[in-house]
């Protein structure tokens, strides 16, 4: 269990907690109390809690301005030089050029799949939006996987994908639940896509066919699959 404990009731510290009593169940009960019990942890030295004997108390209000003046004085009184020039380092980072930021991103060991894609597509200028907002389907189908989803957003919605949309489309593309045509159609014919009015020559007919395929009732498709299995003798 934890070494530090403060049990607050009505703003007053109460130190009557028996370690074995402060299970998470007990904590939960205390936290649930709308009158303000909080358990931050337990301390082996504390003793039996007695909620019955507690009474609502109010600490006198703290004078914030007086408190701040005291804090200011403490800062001024500190005689030792800081071990690190915090403000100076902060200023260095505040003034980093975009190119340096890009380098930080490339070197970032925590970058996830989304970030890696961003690095590949954006930073390497692999795709450039067309000023006339007109593409041929093949301009977009030539990309695969992460790059395809990212570039589909750039081309059709004229923006980078949000993480939720990127992840959802990528996962469905990888599982085969959606084809590239489906994703392009969903983006292009979404309310946002319609507002962007990007032209994709060659998309409408295959998108319509795919939509019809997807809307065939599941039972019919299952029967068709069963029939195909019988014919092929699987």
């Amino acid at each position, binding site marked *: 269990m934890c070494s530090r404990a403060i049990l607050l009731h*009505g*703003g007053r510290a109460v130190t009557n907690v028996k370690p074995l009593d402060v299970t998470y169940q007990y904590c939960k009960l205390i936290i649930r109390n709308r009158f303000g019990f909080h358990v*931050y942890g337990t301390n082996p030295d504390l003793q039996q809690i007695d909620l019955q004997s507690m009474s609502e108390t109010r600490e006198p209000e703290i004078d914030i301005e007086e408190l701040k003046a005291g804090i200011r004085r*403490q800062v001024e009184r500190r005689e030792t030089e800081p071990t690190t020039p915090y403000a100076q380092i902060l200023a260095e980072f505040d003034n980093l050029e975009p190119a340096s930021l890009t380098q930080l*991103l490339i070197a*970032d060991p925590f970058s996830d799949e989304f970030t890696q894609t961003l690095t590949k597509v954006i930073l390497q200028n692999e795709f450039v939006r067309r000023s006339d907002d007109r593409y041929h389907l093949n301009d977009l189908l030539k990309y695969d996987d992460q790059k395809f989803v990212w570039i589909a957003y750039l081309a059709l919605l004229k923006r980078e994908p949000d993480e939720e949309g990127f992840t959802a489309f990528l996962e469905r593309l990888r599982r085969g639940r959606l084809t590239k045509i489906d994703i392009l159609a969903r983006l292009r014919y979404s309310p946002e896509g319609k507002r962007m009015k990007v032209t994709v020559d060659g998309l409408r007919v295959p998108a319509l066919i795919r939509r019809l395929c997807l809307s065939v009732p599941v039972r019919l498709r299952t029967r068709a699959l069963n029939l195909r299995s019988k014919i092929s003798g699987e």
Partner: protein
Amino acid sequence: MRIAILAPSITSHDAVSNDVLGMYGALQNAGEVRIFAEGWSLTEPRIFSSSKLESFLKKSDDILIYHFARGWEPALPLLNSLKCRKIIKYHNITPAKFFARYSADFANQCREGRLQLRLIATSDTDLFLSASGYNMRELLAEGAPETKSFALPPFHHIDRLHSIEADAAVLDQFQNGHVNVCTVGRLTPNKGHPQLIAAFAAYHHEYNPRSRLIIVGKHETRLAKYGALLRALIKRLALEHAVTFTGGVSDNALKAFYTIADMFVTTSEHEGFCVPLVEAMALKVPIVAYGSSAIPETVGQAGIVWEQSNPFLMAESINAIASDSSLSAGLAQMGWGRYQDLFTNQRIGSEFLSALRTLS
């Protein structure tokens, strides 16, 4: 009477969406209420496509409540074409300058939103509700009429946080005698994380090495350069083992982080209201903050708010709270009192309904 609440998108763990849901709940007895959005990830309550909005609001005494938090092209044509009564809820739009270094797309979105601000402020709207006085002043400056303007804090999910269990795994992991300095909010450049990290570095290295900074909030991967900058700064300040990024968390985990937090610290440079401050008050976590934008009016006298984001003032403030349990308890109590006085959903609901009654 029909009431439509409209937002570009409705998702979980989102302050604007929580406000939409809170309004939806508060209006249940006021008429037929529906939520409309262009995109959504919630299944309950039922959300309708924004393309169906015009067929829902037909009469002149129907009401549209539009939540304005970013540039969204369809908003203005809708506001201009609908003949019903209209309410804007303004949550503020982050200035583009914060994003310019990290994402051109993000910066453009903000710029477009800011351009819409004047058009919305001068549109034919019956009521302007702003999440804070700070937001209201922005709308007034852009031409919104004062007689139709009110400040109304956003509804929030704090009742839910009070009713659920804290995540036991988080409690286990972070309760080990270290001072836990927490902040909550999306990992975006307006939140001033570099200043927070520098302030924490001063506390960690100069006062108490048995301390950690926990940054709770969803990563926005389009802002990956910002995340990379923060990690590089952490490395430069030798804090690799003292700073934790949690990413997006469940409500149970969020409650646990507030539970283990010795204090809530924010050095955010731009907030239209800052719901996490109210969460901290409601969960009795003392607050230290840099008083930018709407933060001073949200915190009031219930926390230590500095006019400048000086790492040493912040570090000394952290130390004052961490080393004095009666000060910590007193600040927590003052936050709780402010939450009870101003920010409960019940109170916000009653103010919201009062504002609606001013509609002609």
